[in-house]
Structures are given as C-alpha cells and as structure tokens.
C-alpha cells in the first residue's frame, strides 16, 4: 500500500511516498505563486520516482505546510507542527525536541517518549530567524546561502548583531561591512543571532535531548554549530534529508489513517 505526504511550504514544495513503512520516493521543488501547482508538481515528480502511474495509486494523501488547504488531491490536512514532530520522531525515536526552521517560520516542538507533541512555540509574523532572513543576508554579503552555511566561513570572533528584524539586521550588517569587519565574523554573527533567537524559543518549551533540526534551514551547518555552542548540546542527525520531515510525517499520518480503518 502506497501513501503520500505533501508539504507545501512558503519556499519549497515537498512530496514523499511511503510503501510498507519505508520511504520509496521524495522530492523537493521550488514553490510557485500557486500552491496547487506546487503540490501537483512535487507529487508528480515523486510518483515518477516511485515508478507509479497516477495519483490514484496512493491510498491516502495528507497535505501540510502553509499551502495545506490548497493541496488538491489531499484527503485531509494536518498542521506542519504535528507533521514535523511525527516525521522527526519516526526518523529517530530518540528525538524529544524538534526545531523546524522553514522559509518564513520557525517552530519548536517538545515531544514525549511516544512522540506526542506536548507543547510548541512558533515565531511571530516577521521573518526573523528563517530562510528569508538568511536569503536577505546572503544577498547583502554576496556570498550565497552556501557561503553562510559553510563551516569554513564561521569566523572565531562572531560580530554582534542585536536586531532580530531582517530589515534592521540588514542595516547592521551593512554597518559591519563598512567598519571593515571580516566576512567570516559577520557570517558567524548572523548564524549566532539566529541561534540566540532559537535558543530563547527552545527555552520556552524546555530542552530535552535528543534535539533534531528540520526544515530547509536545518541544512545550514553554520547555524547548527552556533546552536550547539549556545545550547551545549549536540544536534542529532536524522537518517534522511531533514527538509522532508514534514512531508514524511504527513505520509505517516496517512498510513495510520488507512490502517485504522
């Protein structure tokens, strides 16, 4: 039995197909201005990769993410908070804290030993500490997202960036550039500013090991190291691309639905 999960985020669309409790296909596509199109595109690609002919080959599909109400072929939609928690816990059952850093949201979920979400926090409306923030900074620094992520670029003397607002942080970065602060120290400053913000969100729900990062920004190694330093805890690596954790969780919820009926 094949089931699918489709996570339409603000920046990327993710589709996952699960067969008998294992992932048989997953794909990540850039979001379009039309969430339905993003969903169709991601799922068509995943179906192709799984060697399936049509959407009808999937017994149940769960939509999640910002565009979850617009996934045309979904049987139901579940919030990305529940899906990311479910996906991360399934990928590593030792996980008790999940930090999902997406394109325009970041969320922290506290899980119990059965993977149930005990509590969660979500950032406010602004894009501080999210993919949009990193994109804006990469543009100012002209270093690309890889430049911000690269372990080689994390300067030892992180510059202080106090503003959490993307717009204000940008002017702080411009000031740093003009003061002649070296690029790696600015990059380290950007990552540690976001790590600080995540740190305070994590403290709201309480940190319990293991901690996993999910969402697109979890691939930012510079951020992961800055967060580890701040928390004094190692980030647990997931055995799959952490960006698809939400879609994995959605597919698993679909799997449960079919099995319960």
């Amino acid at each position: 039995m094949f089931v699918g999960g489709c996570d339409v985020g603000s920046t990327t669309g993710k589709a996952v197909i699960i067969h008998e409790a294992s992932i048989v296909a997953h794909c990540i596509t850039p979001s379009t201005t039309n969430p339905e199109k993003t969903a169709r595109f991601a799922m068509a690609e995943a179906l192709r990769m799984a060697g399936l002919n049509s959407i009808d080959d999937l017994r149940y599909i769960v939509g999640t993410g910002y565009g979850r109400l617009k996934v045309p072929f979904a049987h139901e939609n579940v919030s990305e908070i529940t899906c990311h928690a479910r996906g991360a816990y399934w990928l590593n059952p030792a996980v008790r804290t999940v930090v999902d850093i997406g394109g325009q949201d970041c969320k922290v979920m506290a899980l119990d030993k059965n993977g149930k979400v005990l509590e969660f926090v979500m950032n406010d409306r602004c894009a501080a500490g999210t993919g949009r923030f990193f994109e804006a900074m990469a543009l100012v620094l002209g270093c690309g997202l890889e430049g911000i992520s690269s372990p080689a670029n994390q300067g030892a003397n992180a510059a202080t960036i106090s503003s959490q607002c993307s717009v204000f942080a940008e002017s702080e970065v411009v000031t740093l550039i003009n003061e002649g602060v070296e690029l790696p120290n600015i990059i380290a400053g950007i990552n540690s500013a976001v790590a600080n913000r995540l740190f305070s969100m994590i403290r709201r729900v309480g940190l319990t090991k293991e901690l996993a990062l999910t969402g697109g920004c979890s691939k930012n190694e510079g951020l992961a190291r800055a967060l580890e330093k701040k928390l004094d805890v190692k980030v647990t690596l997931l055995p799959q691309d952490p960006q698809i954790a939400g879609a994995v969780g959605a597919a698993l919820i679909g799997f449960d639905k079919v099995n319960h009926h």
Partner: protein
Amino acid sequence: METTITSTAFAEFAATAEAIMNPAIEEWRNNGGKVVGYFCSHVPTEVLTAAGLLPFRMRGTGSTGTELSDAFYSSINCSFPRHTFNQALKGEYDFLDGLLCISSCDHIRRVYDNWKQNLNTPFVKIMSLPKKVGDPQVEWYREEINLLRGELEQHFGVQITDERLRAAIKLHNETRRLQRQLYDLRKGKHPAITGAETLAVMVAGSAMPAERYNALLRSLLDDLSRSNGTREYRARLMIVGSELDDPEYVEIIEEQGGLVVTDSICYGTRTMWVDVDEQAADPVEALARYYIQERPSCPRMNGDQPRRAQFLRNLIDTFQVDGVIGERMLFCDFWCTEHYMNRLDFKEVGIPFIQLDREYILSGKGQLRTRIQAFLETMGK
C-alpha cells in the same frame, strides 16, 4: 463552522457588530437622543442610561490603518486605541455628544489626552478607577460615580435621581440575565450558538438602546430554542483575554473545529455574570460595589488573581471546556502577566492552554490557523 441561525434578531446583531454606526443609533439621534461613547467595561453605564443618554462602547471596527493616529502614540502603545482613535480622526465618531474614558490602562488614558486636544466632542471626561478591590476602593469609586453624576447633570441639563438610577440598574440587569440565558444554551453537547455568533450578540449589546436590545435578545432566545445546535466539532474551547470585539477572529478558531463555548473577555462573561444589587439603599454604592468587587475581575485589578483563577476553573467545569485560548493584544502588560499565571494554573490541572498574541485588527490569519489547528491536534482532537 457555518452560521446556522435563521433569525432576524441575529441578523441585526451581526450587522451592528460589523459597523460603528447602526440604524438604532440613527433612530435614537433622530428622536433627539444623545450618545456618549465609553471605554472599558468598568464604566458604570447605568449612570448614562439614568441620564437618558445612550452608552456606546468604543471600538475601532472597520479600521484598516493607523496613519492618522500614529503621530499621537508611542511605539509601546497597543493597537486598540490606535485604531479607535484613527476612526475618530476620520470622523467616524462625530455623532458622539460625549466621551467617557477611564484609567483602566495607560493606553486608554492616552485616548483621553489625545481626544481632548484634537477633537471637539462637547463632553469629555476621564474617571479614576481604583487598582484594588477592597472596601476603601468601593468608597473611592462611589465618590467617582457621584462626581460623574453631577457633571452629567450639569452638562446635559438632566436630573439623575436615585429612582432613575434604580430603573437603569434594573434594565441593565435584565440585559445581563438575558445574556446569561444565551450562555446557558452553550453548556450542553450541542450548543445552540457558536462563539463567533455569541460575540456579535455581546458587541451589539453595547451599541444600541437597552430596551431595544433586550427585546431583540428575547426574540433571538426564542429562535434558538428551536435550533438543533452545533453537532460537529473537535473540541470545546474557552477564550480568555481582553478587548476582543471581532467575531471573525473567533470564526477562524471555529473553522478549525474548535467550538468556543464560553469566555472571560471584555465582551463576555465578565460584563454579565453577576447582577448589580437592586435592593441596596444607595444605588450609587451598589454600582461601586459591583464594578469594584462583585463582577468577575480584570487583570488590571491588583491582588485579585486567585479569584480570577477560580472564576476560570468554574467556567471550565460549567461549560465542559477541553482547552483554553489565552488571547492578548501586543503590548498589553496586564494580560502578559495574567496569561503567564494562567499557563501555570492550567498546567497544574491538566487543561491545555495556548497563548495567542494579536493586533487589534485581524492579521496573520495563516499563522493563526496553524496555531489553532496544531493546538487541537496536540489535544488529540
């Protein structure tokens, strides 16, 4: 959740909540009646009624921006006075014959300052509301109410006799009694009215003459007695918070399947759970005692949190509440502290709780939906 009510009374309530001006006020004014706007549910509206004035509770309904009022507020002021004052600067409140502010919070006090300096409303007054709930404070507020009584008599050329005060208290108590009956219909398994609809009914109660409102509410109660009620919902929720006057906000919560069955907000139980004593020898003292000591208290009252917590626990039992939404307008310090304590209290008794910060006008709907949906999911609903 779909509106299932077919009731002309409800249609009038809904329309009244959606706008500042409404036909009932127009009619009142065409007949020579005067209207006094007031901020905060601690204002003794019975005195206005006794003076033959129509009390209208101030709100910023319909506002889309604060470009006119921003110049008068600092960055720490909340968006409620900003939007409401912006509406006033646009001329939406030109129909007022008076404005009654109260020192309920610093933000409302700034409305008084700015209003007095920038608008030409003939009667503008601020009342002093004590910060504690003891007997000396009742005495203080009794004097405040008597001062108000005197100033209204002088300005509007009316006599506010004890007899007229008693009649006004009776009339407003009748409103409270009818509103409690409405809430009774939400206690059962299939509530006859949704939370969003209830909020519209409550908001309308502060925007039309009490006699007319009571008659309409009686007719609505009659219509609802034939309703099958809401059958499909995921959880029963309570909203706890401040000045929430927008039914659409509650609608978004209910669209996710969380039926709001009760509340402790400024347009809800706090204004009608208890009656003013109709038998007291001094009606002014009865009013003072009601507004300071007897009505369910608001977090701006110091030293009264245990009583508020008990009130919430009683509501949870009475309305079989599954989870609580703590609503707070950004920059409100009273509710920030209160929800911190609520969170601890609810954790102790195992009631799921989520705090949602908001702006006065509805924004960030997507994030609101996600939070509510995730909240219901974590409740296992």
